[in-house]
C-alpha cells in the first residue's frame, strides 16, 4: 500500500507542478513535453526513494502497508501518465458523438433533421481538413488534398492494423 500511495502521490504532484507551470505561461496550450519531463523526474524520485530511503526499502509480505509492490506501483504510475494529456485533449476535440449526446442531454429529445443541422460538412469535414493542413499532416494546392510522407507511413501502419482487425475502414 505504501508504494502505491507513494507513486500515486508523485503522479498527483507531477500534475500539480505542471498546472503551476501552465499558470505562468501565456500560450494557451498544455505544454505536453514538459509534463512528460516532470513525470519522468517524479518516476526517478520514486525509484530513488524506494531503493535508497531506509524506511521505504524494507518490504514485508505479512503487512499490507509494506506489501512488496515496488514494481507494480511504478508500472501503475507509468500507465497513468498518458491519461492526463489524453483526457485534457478530449475536452478540446468536440467529436460528433460528444455533440450528439450533449445535445440530447440538453434538449431532452431531438429529431434526425435537427441533429443534422449540428453535424454538417463545414464543421466536421472542412474544419478537420483545415486542421490537418495547419498541423502539417496533409497538403493542399488549392484543388487537391495530398498526403505528406509521414502521413503516408501512418496510413500504411493503419492498413496493417486493419488487416489484423479484419474490419472495414472506420470513421
Amino acid at each position, binding site marked *: *500500500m505504501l508504494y502505491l500511495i507513494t507513486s500515486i502521490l508523485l503522479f498527483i504532484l507531477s500534475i500539480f507542478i505542471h498546472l503551476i507551470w501552465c499558470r505562468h505561461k501565456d500560450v494557451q496550450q498544455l505544454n505536453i513535453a514538459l509534463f512528460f519531463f516532470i513525470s519522468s523526474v517524479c518516476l526517478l524520485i520514486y525509484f530513488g526513494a524506494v531503493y535508497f530511503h531506509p524506511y521505504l526499502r524494507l518490504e514485508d509480505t505479512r503487512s499490507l502497508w509494506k506489501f*512488496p509492490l515496488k514494481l507494480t506501483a511504478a508500472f501503475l504510475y507509468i500507465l497513468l501518465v498518458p491519461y492526463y494529456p489524453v483526457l485534457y485533449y478530449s475536452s478540446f476535440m468536440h467529436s460528433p458523438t460528444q455533440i450528439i449526446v450533449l445535445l440530447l442531454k440538453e434538449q431532452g429529445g431531438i429529431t434526425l433533421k435537427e441533429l443534422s443541422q449540428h453535424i454538417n460538412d463545414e464543421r466536421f469535414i472542412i474544419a478537420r481538413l483545415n486542421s490537418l493542413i495547419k498541423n502539417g499532416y496533409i497538403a493542399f494546392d488549392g484543388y487537391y488534398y495530398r498526403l505528406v510522407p509521414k502521413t503516408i507511413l501512418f496510413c500504411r501502419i493503419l492498413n496493417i492494423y486493419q488487416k489484423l482487425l479484419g474490419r472495414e475502414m472506420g470513421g
Partner: protein
Amino acid sequence: MLTIDSIILTTAVGTFIIYLLAHLLVFRFIAVKGVLPWLMRVFFLGTFFNVILNIYLSLSKTKIMMESGILGVGFCVFLSFIIYGIMSFFYVLNIYGPYESSLSVRLIREIYQTLPQGSTIYEILKRYNADMILRTRLERLIGSGEIIVEGPIYRIGKYPCIFLTLHYIGRILNRIVLKTRAEHIKKKYK
C-alpha cells in the same frame, strides 16, 4: 520463484494479451451497432481470465501467498485487475477508438486511397460526409443503449454514457488549466 510484483504484472499483462487477441478475433464479425457492447463483453472475458490466472498462480505459488494471507491475495487480484483495466482502456482510447471513429484518421485514409494524385473536396465528400458520420454514430449509440429512439425522436438512454463522463472530466481539467492561466494573464497585464 516469482515475487508478488511479478505475479501481479504477469497476470495483468497476460490478461491484456488475451484481451487483445480476443478483440482482434471477435471484432472481425461485429457490425457497427455492436461495437460498444462487444468492447465491454471482450473486457469481461479478459477479467474472467484475469481471475483464473490469479487463482492459478496463487495456488501454485502458495509459499508467497500463504505469507501474505487472504487479504494480501485479494489485494493482488484487485491490483492485477486495475492494471489490466487501465491497459485495456488505454488501447481502446488511443488505438482502436481513433481507428474506428476518428474523423481525421478517416479523412487521411480517404486521401491515401487516391495516391499519388490526391483528392478534391468533392471526391472526399462523395465518399465520406456529415450524413454518414451522423448515421454511424447514432447506430453505435443505439446499439450500446446510450441513446434510444422513440418514433422520430432520439433521447438519452438508461445506460450511463461514457462519452459524457469523458467530456466532463476533460472539461474540469480544461477549466483548471485554462481558467487559472487566464486569471494569471489578466493580473499580469493589468
